[in-house]
Each structure stands twice: as C-alpha cells, then as structure tokens.
C-alpha cells in the first residue's frame, strides 16, 4: 500500500518535471543555439552544442550601424530605472492619499482611478503622440518615462492602497498624538511599512518597461537611442536574411536582467502576484 503511494508520488513528480522541461524548452533552445556556430543552429538538433563558440556574442555586441549593443543595454537600463523610480514614488503618494487621508471628492477620484486601470492604452495613444510631437519630445525618453512620474499605471496605486489599508490605523493615531503631521506619517510610518509592495511595484515596472516594445517603437527612431527590444527587432529580418547566431545571442542577453531580478526578488514577486493578481 505504502509502496504504491510512493510510486504514485514519484510518477507525479516525474510528470511535473517532464512537463516543466517541455515548458522551458524554447528558452533552453534559445540559450543553447546562441552558442552554436551559425550553420549548426538549424541543422544540429540536440540541445548541447557540438561545437561551442562565443562568436555570436562578439558579432552581436557590435550592434547596428556602428552603435554597439552595449548602448542599447545602457539605454534600456536608463529608461527602466527612471520608470521604476517614478512609479514607486508617485504611485505610493497617490495610494497614501487614497488609502489613509480623507479629503474632498475622495470617492470620485478613487472611482476614476479604478476606471483608468481598465482603459485600453490605445484610446489615449494618438493625442498623446500629438502632444509629445508638439513638444518636440519624439526621439527623447520623456514620452516613455514621464507617464510613470505622473502615476499613469494606476494598477500600482490600487495594489498599494490595498496594502496600506492592512497597516493598523493605531500606528498613525499614536503618531498624530506624538505630533506627527500627515506628511511625516507618510515618510516615517507608511512608506517604511509599505516596502514589500514598493518592491513588487518596482520589479513589475522594471520588467514592463524593459519589454515595452510598442511605446519604444513609436517614440524612438534614432538608432543611438534604441533600447534592447528595438535593437533585437532591427537585427531580425522576417524575410529570413538575419544573422541568426548574433540575433539569438543578443536575445539571450536581453533576458538576463529580467531573469536576475526575478530570481533575486522572487519572494516579493510571488506575493505581489498572489495578493493583487498582477500579470
């Protein structure tokens, strides 16, 4: 009886692991192919490269039109980090106001904030583009970063409001009695306790702005300003004339920052998803 239970458990684990490998296979294929010489990528089937080479990385890093891929990486980092800072700071401000303070028209603003979460991006896209082009901000990072400094991703506000509501009110009350102003309550009490939510928001903002191909493509056409996503897309020719080795090598590199951040902050990540249903 017990033997049977163990056997059942083992086979279940085996099944789950097998399925997991199948799930990861595309990623593994990408990594292994990036180390294969160009003529073997599509001919040698096995995952382990028969001939191991770093040429793809060397070729890919040279980038496009004399702009090295390193520039694309630096650009992506700049955009993502500025976005993270903006989102974390301004969304937590708004969340503090909604979750803790009471003020006129609070319910109205809160309802409007909830509606904006569901609004498709495209309905504001064209006027936004017109505004940015009037301001001569096309081919700058303002259109990508400024919205984050105006807490445009209201999703994070809602997530932080929920978190703030879980912080005991007694803390604020005793702080008020001790003479704290509302501003001090934010900086001394709410913000420090909000840290897990801030980290979740930071991670998701980082990943989403790193991957935000659509906005980057619309607002950036100067190759010196290209991000990693744009760089990869430009190396890739759908009609089939790409340097596949270099393309796959840079693709692999493009996934490294996200993966590292995920692995380091995994705990916050899973909690963030589980408690708020983030993507």
């Amino acid at each position, binding site marked *: 009886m017990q033997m049977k239970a163990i056997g059942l458990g083992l086979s279940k684990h085996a099944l789950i692991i097998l*399925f997991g490998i199948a799930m990861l296979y595309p990623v593994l294929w990408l990594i292994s192919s990036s180390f294969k010489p160009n003529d073997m990528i599509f001919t040698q089937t096995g995952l382990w490269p028969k001939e191991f080479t770093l040429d793809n990385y060397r070729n890919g890093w040279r980038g496009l039109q004399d702009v090295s891929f390193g520039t694309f990486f630096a650009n992506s980092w700049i955009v993502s980090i500025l976005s993270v800072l903006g989102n974390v700071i301004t969304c937590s401000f708004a969340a503090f106001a909604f979750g803790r303070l009471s003020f006129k028209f609070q319910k109205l603003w809160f309802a409007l904030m909830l509606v904006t979460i569901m609004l498709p991006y495209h309905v504001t*896209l064209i006027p936004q583009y017109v505004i940015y082009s009037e301001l001569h901000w096309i081919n700058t990072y303002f259109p990508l970063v400024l919205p984050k400094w105006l807490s445009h991703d209201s999703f994070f506000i809602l997530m932080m409001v929920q978190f703030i509501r879980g912080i005991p009110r007694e803390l604020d009350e005793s702080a008020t009695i001790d003479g704290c102003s509302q501003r001090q309550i934010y900086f001394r009490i709410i913000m420090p306790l909000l840290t897990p939510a801030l980290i979740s928001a930071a991670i998701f903002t980082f990943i989403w702005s790193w991957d935000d191909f659509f906005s980057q493509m619309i607002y950036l056409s100067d190759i010196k300003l290209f991000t990693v996503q744009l760089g990869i897309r430009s190396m890739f020719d759908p009609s089939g004339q790409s340097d596949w080795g270099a393309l796959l090598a840079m693709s692999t590199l493009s996934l490294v920052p996200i993966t590292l951040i995920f692995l380091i902050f995994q705990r916050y990540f899973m909690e963030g998803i589980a408690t708020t249903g983030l993507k």
Partner: protein
Amino acid sequence: MRATRKTMQRQHNLTAYGFLLPWLIGFFCLTLGPMLGSLYLSLTKYNLLSAPKWVGLSNYVTIFTDDQTFTNSLWLTFKYVFMSVPLRLAFALLVAMALNKGIRALGIYRTIYYVPSLLGGSVAIAIVWRQIFDGSGLVNRFLGWFGIEGPSWISHPDYIVYTIISLSIWQFGSAMVIFLAGLKQIPGDLYEAAQVDGAGKARSFFRITLPMLTPVIFFNLVMSIINSFQAFTPAFVIGDGRGGPLDATMFYTLYLYMKGFSFFEMGYASALAWIMLLIVGGFTAIVFMTSKFWVFYGDSKDGR
C-alpha cells in the same frame, strides 16, 4: 473650536491634494484630455502635418460599411481572445491543482512554470516562437515522431494565429500563481465533510473547488480579456510586421498602429481606438453583470 477644525480640515485637504498632485496631473493631461482629444480626432481627417479637418461620422461609417480589413482584424482578435484566454486559465487551474496538494519542492516548480510569463512579453521570445514553429522547426519535428506532418505554421495564413495563441497559453504561469494562492484559502474541512458525505474527487472539484475559486477566476478573466485585446508584440514579431501573410496577423492593435503611424491617418486610427474602447468596455460590463450568477463570495451576507 469650530474655526480650528475648519482650518484643520483645509490643511488636511491641502496635504492630501499635495500627495495626489502627480496623479491628478497625469489623469487630466495623459488620460482625460487625450481621451476627449481622440474622440474629437475620430471625427476628423488628420495627418499630423496639417490641421484636423472635420468630417463628422464619416470615419465610423467607412469603418463599419467599407473596411474589410477592420472586419477581418476584429474577428481575428476575437478568435485570439476567445481561444487563448479560456485555454490559458484552464491550464493554469489544472497545473495549480496538481501542485496544490502539499507537494514537495513546490517553490521550484512554481518558479519553473512562472518563467514563461516572465519572459513571454519580450521580442526575443517572439522570435524564438517564430523559429520553433517554422516549417522545419521543433514543433513539426516533434509531430514527426508521431508520424504527423505538420503544416508550415508561420507562412500559412490559416495556421499562424495558432502560433500566436500558443505563445499566449504558454504564459499560464502568472494565472497559476494566483490560483495557487486562491486554492490555499479554501478551508480543508470542506473537503473532509464532502468525503464523509461520500463525494468523489470530481464532485468535490465541481461543488467545492470551482465555486470557491470563482472570485479569483472572475478577476483573472476580466484582466485577461482586457490585456489580450491589446496584444501587439507577438502579432508584430511573429508575423511580418505588416499584418501578413495575407492579413493573418492583422490584430486589431496592429491595424490601428498601421493606420496611425504608417499611413498617418490619425483621425481614422482614433475612431478605431474608440471602437476598441467600446468593445473592451462592453465585454468587461458583460463579465461584471453576469458575475452575480456565477461568482460565489463566501462572506456574502445572504450566505448563498
């Protein structure tokens, strides 16, 4: 006393609006203003260079009566949404159930299954997808082992959409993590009671697990529908970037993008955007309105 309370209140309002200021500016300048702007532009002809020219409802009339690409792209997007969302959620639930029962090394499995959701939105993975579904790619080689000769998924207009759908299903990990959290909330004594009453596994699933999970499923459903309607990168990268082959990757957002930013018909693109808003809003409303028939909130007062 009253006077000081009043000044206190005013002070509080001022502080609160201070904290809210960035969001308020964003709301008016990036959301409300542009929304009204695109509503206005949708009633004009506008190419960014010369001033908008008022044309009334003619953009909408053209879209609904004389635009085959619009109709095709709408159906294509519907097909994508209604195949990928239910399948992804079903997959997520299935795997979450398998992982739920106090399994060892849950953390590792959860991480592995989450990785696709983490990486799936990037251009890199879309390129990989294009490659593994190619005529002589991994998928067809796998099918070959079973003696099935797969079609050339990428170049055939009938099949490429399934490539894109499969990429979406592959990313079931995030929904799975949410379901895992939801499953944890279901009290174990419910299952024990069911077992005592002689309910089998299937019955427990349909009578306990599924109803208790409906709030989570509801939330996932709403967000997945909204997000899937806006899918762009996979269609753009897996297809040829212009909707081909034969408009088989002309998703709604891609069509909107091309109208606005390739042909610079920005009035027309705005009209497309407003139609999209109404469609997404309509679906969200339907899900919300029907929710009272199938979403079970355990703490509701009438104790259904």
